[in-house]
């Protein structure tokens, strides 16, 4: 799985040599923003699993997915603002999308700090899951309201996606890089959740037998 992830992941570096200029950032930017949200929804599903059916694995998965989510959101923000320098002439715009992505990033950090602040890990798991579930309810609300706000304040806001008529020679590498990043993140997630499960269950017999 790891090998597959890396082979796919490595693919997107050569592929984006197809078209010119700073557009190339799209091959990192768009996938990372997509996964920034997907990971959060994944975490929300895990949180529900943890809260409703008391599956411990759910909490473990959230805990190991949250740093990855924070990282990928950060990459998305960073690539977006660096992309903004040549195209918009500024690295930050109070645009709806950017703002809501920033809020998402803050939420990831909040989840991480919340979990880190408890000595009783089971409590931490449960409270974190509650926060994640509340957060997922709020994401669409935040998105909507930020959208609303930005249309009020800047009617002529800059559209981030490069239009709907995207050329196939750009679309295919984009798709491939989305899939590639997906596999990379899945393998990363498996790795880190494996280590976290080890850490949490180190006293169980099946772990010590299968080191």
């Amino acid at each position, binding site marked *: 799985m790891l090998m597959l992830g890396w082979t796919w992941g490595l693919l997107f570096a050569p592929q984006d040599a197809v078209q010119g200029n700073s557009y190339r950032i799209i091959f990192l930017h768009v996938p990372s923003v997509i996964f920034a949200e997907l990971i959060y929804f994944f975490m929300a599903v895990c949180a529900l699993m943890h809260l409703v059916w008391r599956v411990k694995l759910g909490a473990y998965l959230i805990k190991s997915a949250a740093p990855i989510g924070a990282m990928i959101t950060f990459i998305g923000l960073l690539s977006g603002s660096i992309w903004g320098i040549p195209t918009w002439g500024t690295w930050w715009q109070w645009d709806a999308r950017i703002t809501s992505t920033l809020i998402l990033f803050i939420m990831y950090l909040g989840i991480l700090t919340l979990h880190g602040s408890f000595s*009783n*890990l*089971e409590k931490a798991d449960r409270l974190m899951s509650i926060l994640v579930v509340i957060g997922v309810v709020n994401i669409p609300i935040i998105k909507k309201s930020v959208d609303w706000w930005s249309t009020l304040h800047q009617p002529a806001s800059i559209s981030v996606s490069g239009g709907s008529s995207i050329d196939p020679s750009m679309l295919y590498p984009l798709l491939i890089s989305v899939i590639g990043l997906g596999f990379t993140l899945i393998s990363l997630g498996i790795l880190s959740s494996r280590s976290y499960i080890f850490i*949490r*269950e*180190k*006293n*169980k017999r099946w772990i010590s037998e299968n080191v």
Partner: protein
Amino acid sequence: MKLLSAQNITYSINENKLFHNLSFEINAGEGLHIKGGNGSGKSTLLRIIMGITSPSKGLIETYDQDLNISYLGHKNAIKNYLSPLENLKLLFNDAELKIALKWLGKFGLLDVQDELTAGLSFGQQKKLALIRVFTKSSELIVLDEPLVGLDKTTAELFSGFLIQKLSEGVGLILTSHIDPMINCKVLNLGGKNAEAS
């Protein structure tokens, strides 16, 4: 009459087992003294019995759905920015308040009833907290180290009260390092597979 029974209670915190497969039951008018060293899980067991903490495995069964429990733990649940009198007024209605005031007199706290509780000594605060247990009518009394910090006269008043309550058919569960001078069953948490004797 059975008040409450525990079946195969196991509790572990961060995967470390605190105790394993405990079973016991409490009948009305019966006392249970839980003994054990520091960190053997006495307080946790009390919290499990009251349903505050949920056990990792096992079951607590109460035979009356709304069993009235009075509880006094390590935390007094007393507001230290209020006076003793105000604290009592927060807790009780008028009828109960009369009984509470009587106890306040017996404990010698009438002189300080209008001062801030924060200024009271540890023992005085403990007495104030005990009044809650003494006044509320309940079917089960749960006490965690009630005798710590109490002087001899109060301790005697206290065990006298408990003995009277036991004879009235109230169940009692307590932990204490000091002998409470009451006849009750003993549950020792010291060993691994402790059982009620």
